[in-house]
């Protein structure tokens, strides 16, 4: 043990016993630790409460975290990881990583999810090993389903003899990861600092290896708070990241032949692209084949204004297709089949003999309990590989197998079809344009009009118009959805994405459902406190509208009255004043606004605030969907 070592818990325990036994004697002098030091060195030492640990284990942990390049750690403060928090702030200078104060662990993780998708690298979060991870669990599940890396640190005191009585026992656990192990990629509970260094590097590498996902490292409190015993023996392994694997070359050639031979090929892309480069490859492939692309939206995969983008025509195109190329599609079965609601009757959407090629790593990361793997559907040509990494080889194989101009006759019709799809979307958006509450189409169009000259990111959206109408062309424009459809994602994810975009000069906006925001409004405080600029438009329809139909379906199924569906589904009486809620946390806000002619000016004022570097919120009382 180092000279400045001090066992604080032993001191407190000993001091309490001594105080009871010897009244009027200095408590510190009677502590076992103090007694030992006095006798070994023969001199009277200052009271042990003055002793320090100048180089705690948590300092080394910070060195390790810095070595990964993690820039932020989002957390609600907690005593089980207090030493690590203190080291991040004072030893690490609260920079790379910077401690971000969160109001809820669910927000910490959803922030990390949004950040990772916008930044292209993970953020850290810290939480108590018990209550903190319990709070975080739903958001971790979202990140897992969304295949997003999050590096989580759990505080814990594994050594029961070192725990303070009471709360610390409630906050400790034999196996912190047990709660999450069904939906994280990897975890470890290191028992030494060297163990921590190696497991941290392993965790980061596993989290960022495709398919990506959350990981958990327990930062044991005894190791973190105690002194480093022999730092010369410690080393931090080099961090090297995995290269995404390309699909088998023979299988890629076979896929190219099938696609070239097809009369009506269609491409469906979900979590296919990780960058603008990936989008560029997908455009090249689609153009080489003259094949329409359906961007399912797990990530931004395809430019919305490209004539081969046909995301709004999925059912028709899948129904006509003779060959379908799926690129990292989370729910393949659901693209070709459906089940009616509420009678659960099966219906096929595609031709019975459509040939399916699926380039995916989905089978390499699946577990049994949680059913995010979706219904089983055998592909005719399943290719295990990363979609983006495989695209260049597939493009080359397609070009090799194609005669120049072979598909030219398809292109003209596809251009017309794309135009018709856009016209239909615009016509649909125009209906109810002047309605009050404001139509979601108008709200969406008004927002786009004000951000279209900037580099923009719509981090979260509870409405779909942006995907049908906005001519998005850049990878950073959209970051996909929550993954697991767990409520409470939107506010944190938008703040996380805005944090990543702040440094890139990208303007972040979000259209946030009122119900979702009520799960985790504290994210607004985090944005205000850390000056994370973004515009949140509250799609305030004063209900969980999706649930209304579910209730009405059940009432009809049970042959009961239909006018009670508001019970348990609406958020009225009282109405929530989201502007006041935001203002109370230091966020500039306006609303509620019901007049559709007033939203443009309100959005403009809010965007001026955002461009000054602060968050802003506009509460728009709007149509259900």
């Amino acid at each position, binding site marked *: 043990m180092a000279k400045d070592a001090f066992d604080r818990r032993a001191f407190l325990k000993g001091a309490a016993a001594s105080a009871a036994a010897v009244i009027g004697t200095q408590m510190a002098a009677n502590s076992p630790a103090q007694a030992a030091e006095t006798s070994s060195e023969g001199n009277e030492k200052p009271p042990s409460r003055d002793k320090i640990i100048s180089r705690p284990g948590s300092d080394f942990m910070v060195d390790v975290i810095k070595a990964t390049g993690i820039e932020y750690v989002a957390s609600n403060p907690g005593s089980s990881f207090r030493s690590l928090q203190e080291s991040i702030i004072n030893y690490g200078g609260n920079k790379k990583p910077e401690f971000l104060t969160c109001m809820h662990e669910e927000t910490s993780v959803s922030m990390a999810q949004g950040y990772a998708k916008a930044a292209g690298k993970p953020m850290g979060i810290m939480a108590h090993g018990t209550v903190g991870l319990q709070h975080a669990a739903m958001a971790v599940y979202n990140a897992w389903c969304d295949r997003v890396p999050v590096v989580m640190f759990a505080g814990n005191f594994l050594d029961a003899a070192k725990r303070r009585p009471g709360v610390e026992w409630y906050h400790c656990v034999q196996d912190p990861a047990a709660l999450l192990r069904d939906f994280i990629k990897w975890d470890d509970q290191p028992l030494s600092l060297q163990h921590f260094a190696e497991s941290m590097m392993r965790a980061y590498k596993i989290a960022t290896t495709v398919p990506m996902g959350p990981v958990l490292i327990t930062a044991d409190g005894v190791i973190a708070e105690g002194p480093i015993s022999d730092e010369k023996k410690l080393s931090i392994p080099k961090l090297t990241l995995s290269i995404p694997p390309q699909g088998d070359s023979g299988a890629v050639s076979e896929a190219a032949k099938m696609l070239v031979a097809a009369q009506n090929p269609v491409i469906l892309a979900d979590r296919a692209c990780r960058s603008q480069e990936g989008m560029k490859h997908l455009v090249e492939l689609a153009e080489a084949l003259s094949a329409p692309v359906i961007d399912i939206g797990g990530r931004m995969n395809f430019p919305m204004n490209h004539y081969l983008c046909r995301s709004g025509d999925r059912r028709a195109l899948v129904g006509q297709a003779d060959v379908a190329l799926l690129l990292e599609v989370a729910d393949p079965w659901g693209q070709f089949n459906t089940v009616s609601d509420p009678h659960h009757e099966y219906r096929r959407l595609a031709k019975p003999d459509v040939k399916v090629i699926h380039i995916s790593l989905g089978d390499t990361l699946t577990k049994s309990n949680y059913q995010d793997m979706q219904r089983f559907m055998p592909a005719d040509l399943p290719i295990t590989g990363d979609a983006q990494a495989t695209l260049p080889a597939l493009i080359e194989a397609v070009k090799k197998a194609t005669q120049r101009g072979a598909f030219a006759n398809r292109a003209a019709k596809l251009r017309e079809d794309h135009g018709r799809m856009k016209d239909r979307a615009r016509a649909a958006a125009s209906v109810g344009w002047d309605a009050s509450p404001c139509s979601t189409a108008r709200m969406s169009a008004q927002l786009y009009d004000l951000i279209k000259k900037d580099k923009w990111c719509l981090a979260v959206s509870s409405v779909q118009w942006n995907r049908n109408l906005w001519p998005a062309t850049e990878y950073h424009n959209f970051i996909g959805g929550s993954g697991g459809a767990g409520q409470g994602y939107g506010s944190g994810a938008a703040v996380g994405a805005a944090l990543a975009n702040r440094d890139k000069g990208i303007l972040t906006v979000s259209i946030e459902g009122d119900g979702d925001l009520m799960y985790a409004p504290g994210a607004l405080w985090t944005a205000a406190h850390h000056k994370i600029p973004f515009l949140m438009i509250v799609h305030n329809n004063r209900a969980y509208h999706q649930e209304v139909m579910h209730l009405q379906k059940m009432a009809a199924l049970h042959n009961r009255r239909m*006018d009670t569906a508001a019970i348990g589904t609406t958020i009225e009486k009282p109405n929530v004043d989201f502007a006041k809620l935001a203002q109370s946390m230091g966020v500039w806000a306006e609303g509620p606004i019901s007049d559709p002619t007033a939203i443009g000016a309100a959005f403009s004022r809010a965007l001026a605030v955002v461009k000054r570097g602060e968050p802003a919120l506009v509460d728009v009382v709007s149509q259900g969907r």
Partner: protein
Amino acid sequence: MSKLFFSALMIVAVSTAYAQEKVSGSSERGYQSYMKYMCYTCHGTVGQGADRGTGPKLAPYPLPWGAFEQQTRLPRQDMPPYRKEFVSDQELADIYAYISSLKPGSEAKDLPLLNF
């Protein structure tokens, strides 16, 4: 096109078979019933429909009464049936009067915000 034609033919055929004599309706009462039964949840307060295909557009230019009644009482696809026991013929006629009263607004080509 042939599928669309067939679907339209089926709607007309089935609705003709189903259609009852239409009760006279009031658009004012219809609005109240439209809100009471929360039709707006999927179809919007002015029948504009929803953006995710969850509720088709009802207005302007609603379906003929027979097809409307058919779709409400014995719907195709995922919409729940609104049976007579719970939504009376009068209420349904009022709702129809309400959506029939909704006038068309500006066309998309005339809305600058939709032309980018």
